[in-house]
């Protein structure tokens, strides 16, 4: 039990640190965003009119008061889910913008990540179970080969074959063809159609790491004394592979999976850009290229918090899966 309490404590402490850093870093940076915006508007050489500067400040809602007061305001705003107004999508709030993007990413990347992990673990375990057979060679060599292909090339190939040549699926976007976001069948089937190609590209590349990791871990555990003893005990191959192999080999992958899940919130910039998908990744790209500080800051916060939560969950899961950590931590 102490293990879980300690983990929760660590989680809260890191969360606070992350939130605070997110507050401090932009404030410690040199330069004034209002000044930067104005300079861009007017050109570098020209003098900036103080009144204009003031107006821009007002528009941005630039903070006033001392750092501590700002910090208090910031925490209060966070608690109420207020992240300010996006510069790019003015006058929409950051919350609105992110709220629109997040379901797309959550569904597309979330589903593919979970599927990738599942497929990768099963294939990797299978390869280890049948190690040094043809099945193993196919899985290992196949995934190594696919892993060497550049992702964008693979994605473009998919678009070329299935969207442009065969015209089975649309070549980009999240929805279209006359449907409007809402709880209706037309929209869902349309959104699904649009998600097939980006999803496929993620599913082709996603499992590779899990396959290779799982296979190598499991080949190693199956070579350990306890696996040999299990064979000597006359246990069935299945029982050995599952309880004495996969059960132990999966442990290191759990942490990796949690981090992968956590980074979902950040979206996958490459996929969403290639497929012009309206998710968090594309939003991040826009925020960065438009110097949309409130949006950027919030996206970073989201990613950090996502990774933290996922890590915490992984620690909890690890505590259940691996009795060894519970004790080592307690001592």
């Amino acid at each position, binding site marked *: 039990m102490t293990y879980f309490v300690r983990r929760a404590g660590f989680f809260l402490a890191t969360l606070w640190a992350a939130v605070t850093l997110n507050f401090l870093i932009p404030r410690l940076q040199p330069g004034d965003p209002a000044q930067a915006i104005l300079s861009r508007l007017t050109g570098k050489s020209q003098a900036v009119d103080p009144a204009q500067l003031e107006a821009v400040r007002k528009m941005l809602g630039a903070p006033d008061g001392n750092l501590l007061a700002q910090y208090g305001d910031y925490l209060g705003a966070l608690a109420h889910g207020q992240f300010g107004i996006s510069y790019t999508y003015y006058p929409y709030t950051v919350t609105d913008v992110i709220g629109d993007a997040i379901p797309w990413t959550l569904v597309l990347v979330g589903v593919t990540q979970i599927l990738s992990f599942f497929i990768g673990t099963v294939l990797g375990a299978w390869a280890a179970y049948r190690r040094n057979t043809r099945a193993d060679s196919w899985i290992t060599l196949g995934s190594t080969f696919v892993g060497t292909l550049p992702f964008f090339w693979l994605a473009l190939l998919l678009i070329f074959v299935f969207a442009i040549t065969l015209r089975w699926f649309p070549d980009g976007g999240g929805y279209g063809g006359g449907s409007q976001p809402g709880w209706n069948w037309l929209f869902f089937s349309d959104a699904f159609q649009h998600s097939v190609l980006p999803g496929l590209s993620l599913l082709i590349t996603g499992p590779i790491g899990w396959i290779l990791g799982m296979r190598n871990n499991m080949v190693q555990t199956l070579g350990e004394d306890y696996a040999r003893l299990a*064979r000597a005990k*006359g*246990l069935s*191959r299945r029982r050995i592979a599952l309880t*004495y192999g996969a059960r*132990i080999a999966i442990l290191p992958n759990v942490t990796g999976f949690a981090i992968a899940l956590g980074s979902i919130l950040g979206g996958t910039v490459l996929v969403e850009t290639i497929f012009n998908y309206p998710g968090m990744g594309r939003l991040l790209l826009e925020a960065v290229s438009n110097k949309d500080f409130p949006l950027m800051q919030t996206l970073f916060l989201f990613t950090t918090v996502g990774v933290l939560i996922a890590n915490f969950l992984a620690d909890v899961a690890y505590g259940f899966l*691996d009795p060894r950590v519970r004790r080592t931590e307690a*001592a």
Partner: protein
Amino acid sequence: MTLLEVENLSVTYSPRDSAAVRAVDKVDFGIEEGEFVGLLGESGCGKSTLGHAILRLLEKPAAITGGSITFDGRDITHLDEDELRPLRWADLSTVFQSSMNSLNPVITVREQFADTFAAHPEAAGDRPDVDARAGELLEMVSLGRDVLRRYPHELSGGMKQRVALALALALRPRFVLLDEPTTGLDVVVQRDILDRLRELQRKLGFAVLFISHDLGTVMEMADRVMVMYAGEIVEDQPAGDMIESQLHPYSAGLLGSYADPRDEVVQVAFVPGRPPDLSREHAGCLFEPRCPVSVDACRTEHPELLPAGRGQARCLLVEQSPDDGALLRDVAPTDRLGGVFSADSEPRARGAADTEPVMVVDGVGKTYRTKRGVRTTTTRAVDDVSFALRPGRVSALVGQSGSGKTTIARLITGVERPSSGTIRFKDTRVDTLRRRAMRRYRRHVQLVFQDPFSALNPTRTIAYALGRPLRNHLGMTGEQARQRAAELLETVGLSPAEQYLDKLPGQLSGGQRQRVVIARALAPQPEVIVADEPISMLDVSIRAEIVELLDRLVRERGIAMLYITHDLLSARLLADEVMVLNQGVMVEHGPTLEVIGQARDAYTRRLLAAIPRPGRSRESWPDEPPNEAERVPAGS
């Protein structure tokens, strides 16, 4: 009827990228129902491979390449995995080497019993009462039933080994293979487990093949002993006969590694050289290059395993002598052994007891604090210990696992600071040194580790391993460092040095690696060497060699040595004085022979009793609870 019959069995390793190795070569023997047979040999002689072959557990690249294994009249050499499964564990079970890693770390002990029962409904019944039966088995090996709920990492090494033993007996097998079942455990724990094992074997009547490199244990436990060398059985005799007279010179060499440390003159032997490369063909006797009594014919003629005395031997000398083995028996024991190292009651011609000490440890204590939630527990690892190390003298620090020996080593080397007391090196206070000064100090105090396999970086050459301390402490680089590294190798008997400089640790034997570790400790020309059980991981046949090397270095270079061990025999051979540590307190100290000869402390007496003395009945145990040495390690 013979329960297990091994005929002409050969096992070959055929790795993809190197030459095939004949690890087991035409081995022939049988084990009767209920018989306890020992299989003795040094590491790499093929004994574990033979064991795995019998259990049909060989994995690629190893495979049976000839001969047959018959169990209870049934040929099991070529059965497939499905045909073997009902036989496994129900008829043939095993306890693996030291079992540190032979229990599944993520499931409870109970579950490991449960899956065994579940896999064998024919032997265990359809619905076995796991708790009752496993509990009973655990009690049989002196463990409580609560162990069922524990995970392996919550048990000490000795407890794990007991669980493994209980597990092996779960289905009442008729044959149990014990592969070095107690190596790596504390001597006293080892004793307890082996005693219990022998008792159970007599009671339950299963047959045993006991594989070990520890001759004393094998001799004591087994009815019959087989000696294996380079993949062949070279001798097979009833244990009693073998103690009286060994037929094969190799067995004689092995037996010579034991002596009673309480004797006035202690003499132990070693077998110099290393076993032959089995990937090549050899014409003559495989032991010939290391054999002290070989004759010309040995080089060309391969001896057969022929009856001799009440057993068998593979030696031309035995074959040719009219009276079995008489020839060997006539040779004086010291002459038929390759090398002898002896210590007598006279003080060594080394540093005298009254020379100025280089290192003085005064009233040192070390307390560890462990936090568990809000509670803080303090453990006194070392309590008010004082001693001095003098140039050219060896002080042995003896004690069981957890007695604080290693903590003292860490304090002396400056890895940790004492909580109380002072440590002085010449005029320097070691316990208060800071960074730069500490680095300079470390040059003078070097360590020799226990495990030569993990003490060297496996990806770096020997020249590199020796070059590091030369560069860090003496500022030597390039050709100069290489030159010095070569000299160091010659010093520790690895000659010609050029042959070793560019090798990787993996290409050396255990003994050679330990020599490299010693050479590395010598590199910065230290005045104090702390040797932490430097021979306990090595084969018995070469231990005395390393002891001799250490002795020579201490004498020639006037080094002060702290020799940490639980092996009283080696302490007797090497040390001028002995200090006995029990739970952090120094309970005895004095000149070696005095302490060992008139041991007062209960632990010292148990250590003495634990030293195998083949052929002599063991002394009874001092009255002590048997499990005292096996407390669950606290928070390790």
